[in-house]
């Protein structure tokens, strides 16, 4: 009995020391994350608060252009949402198609480089550079290049017209097709790289084991390779979808003025053309929250297990 008491007393003493050490460790941790938190507060939290405040501003009677006063005008949201919900939906729709296409195109590319060429480091290196190369040129220049590629007088449009897939007076640019193609192309590296990084770690012995257990190559792919690369696919789809949904360069350069307008373009024009700061802020906020909600649903549905 006495022994037990003294034992617990000892453990209490020790745990005090431990607590102190823990505290010290905890404080070090705080010092370490402080700069990050500060940057985050300064460049994310504060702008978001400002954005939210701005979105509720009101225009006083007789105001000059660009003059708004602090207020609590929830109606700003109603106004922009009722006017621009089609553009918002379209943005998510286009981003979704682009993401799926990027996955379908990007996965085989990543697979080829990361798995098939594992034994050939030189070729692997060259192809990897080619995959990343688009990153080295300006986003907008790349989009311009797409415009040239898809131009009426360009090879692709001419060829499609020749085989009568495209009507003689049809065109590829200034169409939803061009916008989605541009989005797909521009965000492809964001899809390929995470999948590549993931597949680079794929233990091919598992594929041998699957083959040994009667799985055909196709079967091995769907049962082993694909599920094992889920974290890469997950990261890739998020990294593609989020910027694609907010993008306006592709729709501005490759779209028309009817059925390709995306929400980023609307925000741009509310801000710069109409000088409607609250409207632009409200739309930005809606876009941010919508993406947050969609991503949360996505993570809940597919993410947690694989992200461990």
């Amino acid at each position, binding site marked *: 009995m006495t022994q037990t008491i003294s034992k617990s007393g000892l453990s209490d003493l020790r745990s005090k020391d431990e607590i102190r050490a823990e505290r010290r460790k905890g404080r070090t941790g705080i010092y370490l994350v402080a700069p990050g938190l500060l940057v985050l507060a300064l460049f994310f939290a504060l702008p978001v608060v*400002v954005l939210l405040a*701005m979105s509720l501003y009101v225009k006083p009677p007789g105001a*000059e252009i*660009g003059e708004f006063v602090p207020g609590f005008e929830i109606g700003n949201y109603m106004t922009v949402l009722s006017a621009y919900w089609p553009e918002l939906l379209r943005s998510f729709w286009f981003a979704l198609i682009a993401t799926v296409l990027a996955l379908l195109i990007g996965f085989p590319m990543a697979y080829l480089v990361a798995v098939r060429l594992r034994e050939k480091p030189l070729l692997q290196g060259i192809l990897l550079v080619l995959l990343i190369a688009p990153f080295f040129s300006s986003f907008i220049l790349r989009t*311009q290049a797409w415009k040239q590629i898809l131009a009426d007088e360009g090879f692709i449009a001419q060829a499609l017209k020749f085989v009568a897939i495209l009507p003689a007076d049809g065109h590829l640019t*200034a169409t939803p097709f061009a916008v989605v193609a541009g989005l797909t192309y521009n965000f492809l590296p964001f899809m390929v790289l995470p999948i590549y990084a993931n597949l680079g770690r794929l233990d091919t012995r598992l594929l041998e084991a699957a083959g040994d257990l009667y799985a055909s190559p196709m079967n091995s792919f769907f049962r082993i390779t694909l599920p094992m690369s889920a974290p890469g696919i997950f990261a890739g789809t998020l990294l593609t979808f989020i910027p694609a949904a907010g993008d306006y360069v592709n729709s501005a350069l490759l779209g028309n*003025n009817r059925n390709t307008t995306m929400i980023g373009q609307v925000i741009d024009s509310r801000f710069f053309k109409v000088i409607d700061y609250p409207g632009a802020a409200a739309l930005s906020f809606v876009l941010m929250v919508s993406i947050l909600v969609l991503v949360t649903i996505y993570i809940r549905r597919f993410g947690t297990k694989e992200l461990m």
Partner: protein
Amino acid sequence: MTRQRAINNQRRRLLQGIEQAQASRRSVLAGAAGLALAGLLSACGTKGTSSGNAAALAPATDLSDSEAVVNWANWTLYLDYDEKAKNYPTLQRFMKESGLKAKYAEDIDSNDSYYGKVQAQLAAGQDIGQDLMVFSDWMTERIIRQGYAQELDHNNIPNIKNLLPALQEVRFDPGRKKSLTWQSGYTGLVWNKEAFPKGLRNVEDLWDPELKGRIFMLDEMRDTMPMLMLDDGVDIAGSWGQVEFGRSLEVLDRNIRNGQIRQVKGNAYKQDLISGDAIAGLAYSGDITQLNFEEGGKWEFALPESGGLLWSDNFQVPMGSPHKKNAERLMDFYYQPDVAAEVAAYVNYLCPVLGAQEEMEKFDPELVEDPLIFPTEEFLSNTSSERELSVEEETDFQNQFQEVIGV
């Protein structure tokens, strides 16, 4: 000289895409920054948001005598540039002659985006880091109305006497006290002579079925709408209102809906002309002169018979600038005919300086008789400018226009 021009033009073509790219990027960043800043300032309850009277701003103390610098924000590709020396020859000369250090920034891509970028600071009377900014007439008008521009001292700009008579009195700035023309230009019609030999005489000729899906309009409301109204027979300088505006807007809407108009574009329309996606549309005179020089004279620019637009881009000194006198010395320098001619030979826009035409002989004799650079009476008589819009109209018309063009 022609050779020099060719080099310049080559550089221009090379840089066109890049600069546009940068400009667009900039405008995105500027937008974000502007929005955040505008919000911050407003939240702090600075002048910018005090309703109604913004004219209470006072000019910054002029430090020109102690600080020998002048900062100038201008549009991209709007000043003569020497590819080899990687500098602006006339600006070099200005620095040498004046002893001032001039910092030149190709910051402006469109009136709207630059206004959006600096508006919050202008409203607060703060220094935007530029002593000279260049805006188009209608934005110049807005800046003056909002009290964001300092009054100029003409004693420091003796060469203002060379200003073209037509520009000495402008509606928005009687006596040119708060602005001075940098370059002028026309908005008119352009078409590809090979693809569309018939040519265009009026804006309505753009609705020719042969051109379906191959024409573009400009995304500047202040260009496209007046052009359409002129076509409709409206006196744009006179009294017109929602009815006339609405009628032209309907024309625009119909032709976008039925696919006649392929796209409503900003500066990128030049790429569409080059690629052949577009074969006709509305355009700025200087652009087409440049394009023809670079791409082999395929395009024709003309003012519609119903009239074209004459517009100017103007120097202004922001209220917060502490170098007004230095800025005035720079404006004065560029109003010397030989300097103006050198600039005109590069930028190909309409030169607002008297005597420059004679000086042009030295730079590029071909250009002396170009009515797009040195306008003839006949040309000028076929142009007009839009009347002033009220604050409410500005917002309202812009809103309607944006809705029709889909953004």
